[in-house]
């Protein structure tokens, strides 16, 4: 069927800020969809509140609204734009839920806006547990015994009838939020209560557990002519019980016989046809490992994280095709963009195997509960492609960028057998390393299977790696072993460890003996048809298919998996760098390991290498491609950390020279620069031992800020107030302290701000200053920030400009850099310099309309700022006010303290823009999903020394009609000062206590500044945790409270008696 001509303008909904369970994959799918729709000639209006994305670039859609994803805000846009249709299936669960809410509000009918892709009835059928169950019964497709409940009592009653264990699945939540496995009535009571709370429909499914079954996923597509097909099948390495987002996943399925595979394929196609989905859909199935019995777990009637993975695993662009189908095209009339010779109606055939491993945030959250279950905890993922599974798995491990670069984990090696067995049974993020260790200790496949229920085929892959490891160890320097090890994916680094030599020597030995990787094409058809996809992966095989073009090329290093501190904003920068490189006439080559992103869409660059961002793998590509140079400034710390190794191997690192990068990152060298320039800096020291650290702290005077050098996102950074806290800090971070010196800084009170500067060696452009709303002490990534600054006078701005120019020129910056300042008593102090693109680049690019990454890339490639039309200095400030607010995923991570500090904790960000600061703030809060009723109640639990400040803020809340609750001490103080305050009992005292108030949702906002002691059981921690679990707005900094009040006050009328 040809595309529809009765619609002209289509609104696309994005997915908002990055949270656990909803990450960069929706930037990828949304971007693809917008481009596909424009390719077909439609006018596209995009709404998304996340500034860090490619999809919110003005050249992706005809009009981009960086506005909150709420009914109110989107309706306002609809009334201005009058779109003919709305496409909601590409913005994750947020987009889908918003579409339902918009429909319910009546605006779609009122304005005659048609919903494209999937009908609301289908969304409802797939998402509403009860309706889904009905459909399955009707189709005669099996599902685990289950019942939808609205109360805890119903849940308990049903569990009695089907027997434990049972799984709780809250309706309409993302990434399984609030769900969990329950072995006992007590566990069920707790989890069900929480799940009901988090479900917008106060609805949960109680389901018979099918733990241990094979977890299989199918990515299926269907068009309006009822053509349906499977794009990719995936099998979870970990059986049912661990959320698929937290599972190691292999594509295609490996342990299913054809009968089993076809049976599940038939089921998936039946489901997508029954739901009449027009576009992509994800079907999750559980197959009994001992029979043909299977169960349908769930259906996601939209593109998902799995569809992004499937797209990258096969090369088949699901979101793009889904968008084309949504406007009426059918699969048999769309060309397969990979082969360009066949049609999109084609089930890809793979001649490689893909492994995905999730990337968890437990390196940042040492206290978090690392147990994996039905609630997703990973922030991102890596994918690796190989010609055998050993290779794919080992490439994936070194793509993770965690402490372990292979399956040799010194930490795990120390575990007792008892501990090891426990870790095998109760999976954590590091189970793969324990599996390897088990085989090293001689456990048999059967034994390990008993502990883990993992299929023997998969277990043997790990065992094989361990056998090869032993073989290597037994035969140092034997070429045949080296060859075999490379064939199965061992890195030079790992072989060097086993042979007690260096990776450089292994590399040399390899090259000398022609043991070199080749690059194979991802072509959707297993080489059956000729393809020209510029999408490659490495393998140790015979024929190389990637041939450097005659054009000069530039290699851009991506930023690897999404993690806290290094998010989608670096992918944004990578993609923009590619665009600039292409504009200057070079060929742009991208290397990256993250399947969720836009940068790993092969149509973005001239050539894509889906590879680990490890020195060895990067050098291999460089040796083949012989690029003119490599750009490392846009791939976050991942790329910058590769710079020295690349240069040592004779690679031309473009932009700021490696020695100068070092001058910015090395404490001592940087101090010298600061001194030479006569700039101010908080007193800072570097120490190598515990004694030295303590001595430094005494010399500077408490409070001090401590952290290891060379880390991103303030990992392991803390403000300590006394010797005791410092000693504890050192004990907890002993392993980090061993590798890196510890930095000790004076902690200055004041306002932080940051600038991103582009420098061509002479001129320095400052697109804008971002002022942080929270005082110093909160990590810049977790601070709210505003552009232009609201509190800085001209003198401060001048000092910032002056310092930035001096630093950029002195550090010989060519390209982009980020500087953090603190303004203390009107004086500007330099906190740190990051000689690379920062988190704020997309935000500032969007509001200043300077495509900063592209300008910086052009400068790196030899243009001057003058040539590009920019003057030195601060760019004129915009009329509009823009506020950035961080977004957190604490509700997915048990036992993580949400009190903000110098360690970054947020996973995403939103932007609010308006003509006044207050309105912009309001939008930012709303965008960050904070519910702000006109009359609500607020609970204060604060430290003694904060009481006076709390009073001022509480009075303002009272003024706009909020009821005030407080714990005994605070309440007394507030009441004494004439403020009507309700007293709630502290934890463990009389009922109703503070936790009851929270659990009953009697308050809308919690303000908590109680101490950040390391105890998980501290009152402050428990209060914060309870607030998060119950979805209550939680603020831990008075500056944020002040900002919130500004926004609320602006919205309400004042009530003052005459």
């Amino acid at each position, binding site marked *: 069927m040809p595309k529809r001509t009765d619609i002209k303008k289509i609104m696309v909904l994005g997915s908002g800020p990055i949270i656990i369970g909803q990450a960069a994959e929706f930037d990828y799918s949304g971007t693809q969809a917008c481009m596909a729709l424009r390719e077909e000639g439609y006018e596209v209006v995009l709404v998304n509140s996340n500034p860090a994305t490619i999809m919110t670039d003005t050249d992706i859609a005809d009009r981009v609204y960086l506005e909150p994803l709420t009914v109110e805000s989107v309706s306002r846009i609809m009334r201005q734009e009058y779109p003919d249709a709305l496409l909601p299936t590409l913005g994750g669960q947020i987009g889908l839920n918003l579409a339902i809410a918009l429909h319910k509000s009546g605006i779609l009918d009122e304005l005659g806006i048609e919903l494209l892709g999937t009908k609301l009835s289908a969304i409802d059928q797939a998402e509403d547990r009860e309706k889904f169950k009905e459909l399955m019964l009707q189709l005669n497709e099996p599902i685990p015994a289950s019942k939808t409940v609205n109360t805890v009592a119903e849940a308990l009653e049903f569990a009695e009838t089907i027997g434990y264990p049972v799984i709780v699945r809250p309706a309409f939540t993302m990434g399984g939020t609030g769900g969990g496995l329950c072995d006992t009535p007590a566990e069920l009571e707790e989890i069900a209560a929480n799940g009901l709370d988090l479900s917008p429909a106060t609805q949960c499914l109680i389901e018979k557990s099918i733990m241990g079954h094979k977890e299989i996923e199918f990515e299926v597509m269907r068009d309006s002519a009822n053509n349906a097909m499977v794009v990719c099948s995936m099998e979870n390495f970990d059986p049912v019980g661990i959320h698929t987002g937290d599972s190691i996943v292999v594509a295609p399925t490996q342990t299913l*016989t054809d009968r089993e595979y076809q049976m599940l394929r038939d089921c998936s196609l039946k489901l997508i046809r029954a739901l009449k989905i027009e576009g992509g859909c994800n079907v999750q199935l559980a197959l009994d*490992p001992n029979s043909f019995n299977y169960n349908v777990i769930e259906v996601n009637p939209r593109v998902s994280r799995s569809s992004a993975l499937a797209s990258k695993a096969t090369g088949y662009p699901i979101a793009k095709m889904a968008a084309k189908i949504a406007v009426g095209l059918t699969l048999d009339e769309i060309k397969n963009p990979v082969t360009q010779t066949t049609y999109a109606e084609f089930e890809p055939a793979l*001649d490689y195997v893909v492994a995905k491993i999730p990337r968890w945030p437990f390196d940042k959250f040492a206290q978090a509960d690392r147990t994996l279950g039905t609630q997703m905890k990973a922030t991102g993922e890596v994918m690796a492609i190989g010609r055998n599974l050993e290779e794919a798995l080992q490439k994936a491990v070194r793509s993770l960028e965690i402490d372990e670069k292979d399956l040799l984990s010194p930490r795990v090696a120390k575990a007792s057998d008892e501990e090891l067995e426990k870790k095998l049974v109760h999976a954590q993020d590091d189970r793969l390393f324990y599996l390897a260790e088990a085989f090293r200790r001689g456990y048999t496949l059967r034994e390990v299977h008993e502990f883990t229920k993992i299929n023997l085929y998969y277990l043997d892959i790990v065992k094989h790696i361990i056998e090869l490891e032993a073989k290597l160890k037994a035969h140092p320097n034997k070429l045949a072993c080296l060859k075999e090890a490379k064939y199965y994916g061992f890195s030079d680094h790992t072989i060097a460890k086993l042979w007690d030599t260096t990776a450089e020597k292994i590399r040399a030995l390899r090259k000398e003996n022609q043991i070199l990787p080749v690059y194979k094409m991802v072509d959707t058809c*297993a080489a059956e048809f000729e393809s020209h996809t510029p999408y490659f992966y490495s393998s140790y095989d015979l024929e190389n298919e990637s041939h450097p073009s005659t054009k000069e090329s530039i290699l851009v290093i991506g930023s690897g998996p999404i993690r806290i501190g290094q998010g989608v904003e670096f992918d944004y920068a990578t993609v923009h760098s590619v665009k600039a490189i292409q504009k200057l006439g070079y060929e742009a080559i991208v290397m990256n390991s993250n399947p969720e992103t836009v940068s790993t869409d092969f149509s973005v660059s001239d050539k894509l290498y889906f590879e680990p961002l490890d020195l060895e793998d990067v050098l291999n590509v460089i040796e083949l491609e012989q690029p003119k140079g490599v750009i490392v400034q846009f791939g976050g710390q991942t790329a910058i950390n590769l710079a020295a190794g690349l240069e040592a191997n004779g690679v031309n690192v473009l932009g700021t020279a490696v020695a100068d990068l070092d001058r910015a990152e090395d404490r001592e060298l940087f101090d010298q620069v600061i001194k030479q320039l006569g700039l101010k800096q908080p007193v800072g020291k570097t120490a190598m031992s515990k004694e030295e650290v303590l001595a430094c702290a005494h010399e500077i005077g408490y409070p001090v800020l401590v952290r290891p050098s060379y880390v991103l996102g303030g990992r392991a950074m803390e403000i300590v107030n006394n010797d005791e806290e410092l000693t504890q800090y050192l004990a907890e971070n002993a392993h980090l302290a061993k590798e890196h010196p510890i930095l000790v800084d004076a902690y200055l009170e004041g306002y932080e701000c940051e600038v991103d500067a582009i420098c061509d060696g002479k001129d320095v452009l400052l697109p804008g200053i971002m002022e942080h709303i929270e005082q110093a002490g909160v990590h810049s990534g977790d601070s709210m920030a505003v552009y232009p600054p609201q509190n800085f006078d001209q003198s401060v701005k001048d000092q910032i400009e002056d310092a930035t120019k001096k630093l950029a020129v002195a550090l010989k910056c060519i390209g982009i850099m980020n500087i953090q300042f603190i303004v203390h008593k009107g004086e500007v102090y330099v906190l740190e310099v990051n000689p690379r693109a920062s988190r704020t680049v997309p935000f500032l690019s969007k509001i200043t309309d300077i495509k900063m990454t592209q300008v910086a890339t052009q400068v790196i490639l030899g243009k001057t700022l003058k040539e590009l039309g920019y003057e030195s200095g601060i760019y004129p400030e915009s009329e509009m006010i823009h506020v950035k607010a961080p977004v957190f995923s604490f509700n997915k991570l048990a036992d993580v303290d949400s009190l903000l500090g110098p360690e970054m904790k947020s996973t995403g960000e939103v932007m609010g823009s308006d003509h006044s600061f207050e309105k912009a703030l309001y939008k930012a809060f709303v965008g960050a999903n904070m519910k702000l009723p006109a009359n609500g109640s607020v609970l204060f639990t604060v430290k003694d020394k904060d009481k006076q400040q709390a009073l001022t803020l509480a009075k303002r809340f009272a003024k706009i009609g909020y009821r005030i609750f407080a714990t005994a001490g605070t309440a007394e103080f507030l009441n004494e000062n004439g403020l009507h305050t309700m007293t709630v009992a502290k934890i463990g005292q009389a009922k109703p206590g503070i936790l009851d108030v929270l659990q009953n949702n009697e308050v809308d906002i919690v303000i908590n500044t109680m101490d950040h002691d390391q105890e998980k059981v501290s009152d402050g921690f428990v209060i914060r945790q309870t607030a998060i679990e119950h979805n209550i707005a939680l603020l831990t900094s008075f500056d944020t409270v002040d900002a919130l009040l500004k926004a609320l006050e602006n919205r309400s009328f004042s009530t003052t008696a005459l």
Partner: protein
Amino acid sequence: MERYLVLEDGTVFSGEAFGFEGQTTGEVVFTTGMTGYQEAVTDQSFANQILVFTNPLIGNYGVNLDDYESLMPNCCGVICREVARVSDSWRKQGTFDDFLKQMQIPGLCHIDTRALTKKLREHGTMKGCLVDSVHDMTHTLDQLRATVLNDRVVEQVSTTKPYPNPGEKRNVVLVDYGLKHSILRELSKRDCNTIVLPSSATAQDILNLKPDGVMLSNGPGDPKDVLHAVEMVKEVQKHLPLFGICLGHQIFALANGADTYKMKFGHRGFNHPVREIATGRINFTSQNHGYAVDPATVDKAELIITHREINDGTVEGLRHKRYKAFSVQFHPDAAPGPHDAVDLFDDFMHMIDQRKEEENA
């Protein structure tokens, strides 16, 4: 142990031996299916062929008694990148390696199967041999080039004696040109009383049994090597509902005046989209053929082209205008592959019933 694949153009791939210890010569073909290695190897259409799996990981779930497509396979060699060291499935009765040993099929692994596939795609299907030494390449190549592949391959794989596959409902004669058990399974599911006849069956042999319908099975090789079957079909189609699959489809085409040709590298795999022209419906089909019907030679007065492959336009289905007879190039019986077109068996049943009604009327 080392083992080599030598192709008739002189290319040598060196890898590791598995399966049966021995040498073999055959036509080298590749399949892109990602599951069902056991079904593929036991598919008689691969008789005298060396089968290359583009899917790199083979043997992961072992082999079992349920999934044989024939009990004495004639596939003469297997090539893949990796063979599983350990296989695991609840139905597993043995390993793939042991199975190949039992069936006397040599295997070769750890070679660049993608490079080989590209070569076959570009040069077309070639003869090749699996040998354990290449010391005397000239000799090996001479021998390979001199080998004339058996053109009586259908006779080689077909049953020599008739046998029944009992059922209660319709009586169907199934002529075995190298049939896959999956065709029998589909007929059993529909409770047919099936009699399997050898490939040499004549029209008279069939008509004497007075069946309700006739099926022509799949099979290996060139349809022009089984011209006696073409003669049989010319007569039988006048009297009985007829359904041909794969080689059976080609025989049906030849019987009605169309011509067949050898494809460059054939269709082997199960992601081939096929459009049913009348309805526009597209199915993914299981395919295994190296010959195809030339659409230019299809006599429009006698035959209707009912199905086409959507990418290269290959003739995938034919129907007779006057007789109750039709055929498809793909395998509606799947195994391995998708079940999308399995309802063609129901169409055949319907055709039989219709004829009975007409006769009764």
